């Protein structure tokens, strides 16, 4: 599609957005091709006490961990978990937050106030605290991490969509479509939603970074998927006691988290600039 192509072309011209795209591209490749790229694909589940805590070298590019597993290979499989958590959590938040925001934006009165106050309550609870509460109650597991993150992230989408929808509702083209006799359903789906897609996309990109970071924090606290899952946050937690001797053990997942989060944030910023409709109106300015 030409619009999508236009966005990609503009993104590649923006240097920081390009860096973001590359970082996310590498992450995607790592996740998809993990079994191919991994030098020791079986190390996720196997123990090799004999070669524990070996420094990076020819056979173990990023060294080995306390179980003797290859850090590099575990990192690649960890990318899958990270992406899975990010995509599902942000996807669920979108599915919940966007309709709530649209409905609240369409109606005026107590119902939309109620919806927005509920989302305010969720926003007021610190995300990590709520996630800890959920993980504690339901037990540490991958689905529970995703549930905790979705439950805390949807209000951000509801807020953004509500605010943007309110602005678009006041636009003359929306009013004129009402005057044309369009149903509220048609109005929202075909006019309001496409015109607020840009901030939603930007928010989703930044949300990916944020969600991945929180997931790592939960993993670090032991509330993430249980071992031997190669989750990055948990790996950092495991590496703490070996930090003076095995620098690579903590550095590799730490850097991976850092670069991933930065990638999504840079892409989000780049998208914000590129999707700004004012930049698309490349028309010769006239004076009066």
């Amino acid at each position, binding site marked *: 599609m030409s619009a999508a192509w236009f966005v990609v072309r503009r993104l590649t011209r923006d240097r920081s957005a390009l860096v973001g795209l590359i970082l996310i591209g590498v992450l995607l490749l790592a996740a998809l091709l993990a079994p191919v790229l991994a030098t020791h694909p079986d190390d996720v589940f196997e123990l090799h006490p004999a070669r524990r805590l070996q420094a990076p070298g020819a056979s173990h590019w990023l060294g080995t961990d306390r179980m003797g597993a290859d850090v590099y290979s575990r990192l690649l499989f960890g990318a899958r978990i990270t992406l899975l958590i990010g995509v599902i959590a942000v996807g669920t938040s979108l599915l919940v937050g966007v309709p709530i925001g649209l409905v609240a934006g369409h109606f005026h009165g107590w119902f939309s106030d109620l919806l927005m106050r509920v989302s305010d309550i969720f926003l007021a609870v610190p995300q990590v605290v709520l996630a800890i509460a959920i993980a504690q109650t339901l037990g540490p597991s991958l689905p529970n991490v995703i549930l905790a993150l979705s439950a805390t992230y949807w209000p951000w989408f509801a807020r953004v969509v509500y605010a943007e929808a309110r602005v678009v509702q006041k636009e003359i083209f929306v009013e004129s479509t009402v005057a044309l006799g369009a149903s509220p359903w048609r109005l929202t789906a075909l006019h309001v939603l496409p015109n607020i897609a840009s901030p939603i996309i930007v928010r989703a990109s930044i949300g990916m970074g944020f969600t991945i970071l929180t997931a790592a924090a939960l993993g670090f606290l032991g509330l993430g998927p249980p071992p031997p899952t190669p989750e990055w946050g948990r790996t950092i937690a495991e590496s703490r006691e070996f930090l003076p001797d095995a620098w690579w053990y903590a550095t590799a997942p730490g850097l991976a988290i850092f670069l991933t989060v930065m990638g999504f944030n840079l892409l989000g910023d780049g998208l914000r600039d590129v999707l700004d409709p004012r930049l698309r109106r*490349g*028309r*010769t*300015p*006239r*004076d*009066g």
Partner: protein
Amino acid sequence: MAELLSVRGLRVDFVTDGGVAQVLDGINLDVGRGEVVGLVGESGCGKTTLARAILGILPAGAARVRGGEVRFRGADLLRQDPAVLNARVRGKAITFIPQDPSTSLSPLFPVQTQIMDLMKWKSPRAGNGAGARWPLWRYPRGRYHADREAVLEALRAVQIPEPARALRRLPHEFSGGQRQRLMIAMALLPQPDLIIADEPTTALDVTIQAQILRLLRELVKARGVSVLFTTHDLGTAHEICDRVVVMYAGQEMEAAPTEAFFARPAHPYTRRLLASVPTATGELRDIPGDVPSLVAPPPGCRFHPRCEYATPECQARPALRALAPDHGVRCHHPVDGPVGIGA
């Protein structure tokens, strides 16, 4: 007539995404002392750019002055030291009335703060920009009181009721018409030689417009101030101007005293423009074709592609032809006789 302002051969380009737009193409314009000159043209004709070029406030990144001169009291403003220009000319000898007064005042401060801020630097009692380089320079007490008296006097002159109380109000507490009165007062306060008014009544209703036009004309005539008044509305130009200059696509087409301009317009564009005003009988006459692109304008007279009198000669820009001592037209085929105008 002693010319106060005379623009000669002014060329201004704008760099746009679509290429370099020749927004002003060798403009000539004269404003005499105490004269109200109307700069009339449709949107995109360059009248606002010309007004800005005279004030020296063209957008720095996009606009390029390619040639010509803007002589004000004998000195070329385009070649003057910007610091001198700021201290002595801009806002002082030449002041400005904007189209939309609501965006020209900060909504956060009372009107008094904003007018006195202006007077601190631009009051006629301020000398030639003494201390103007010091942003923290104090307002001398004695002068403050004299200036405040002058401000109250000016507000009375523009018929704002209870001026002392009005000064304490915020801009949004004034109606559109009153805000435009404030802008007129602020433009007159530095005792300028020239006021540039950019479509100052376009946003107003007709009854308010009539009040403002009358007030502005009375005030400038009483004080002997010259006005360059840009407008797209021929009726407004008729109401306020001594002389009218018509622009089309960055070129001036015709300049004449108001009477002669409306009675015997000579340029085919002027005639078609006047004829397109709706008449009482309901007759409607438009100008076929579109305004040309300023990036690739037609050569010579830029109106010739739409002109019924056009000949190959029109590919070259016609020289100024004087039809009467004060009535000049830039056309190879000027037309004689009145145009039927309605309303």
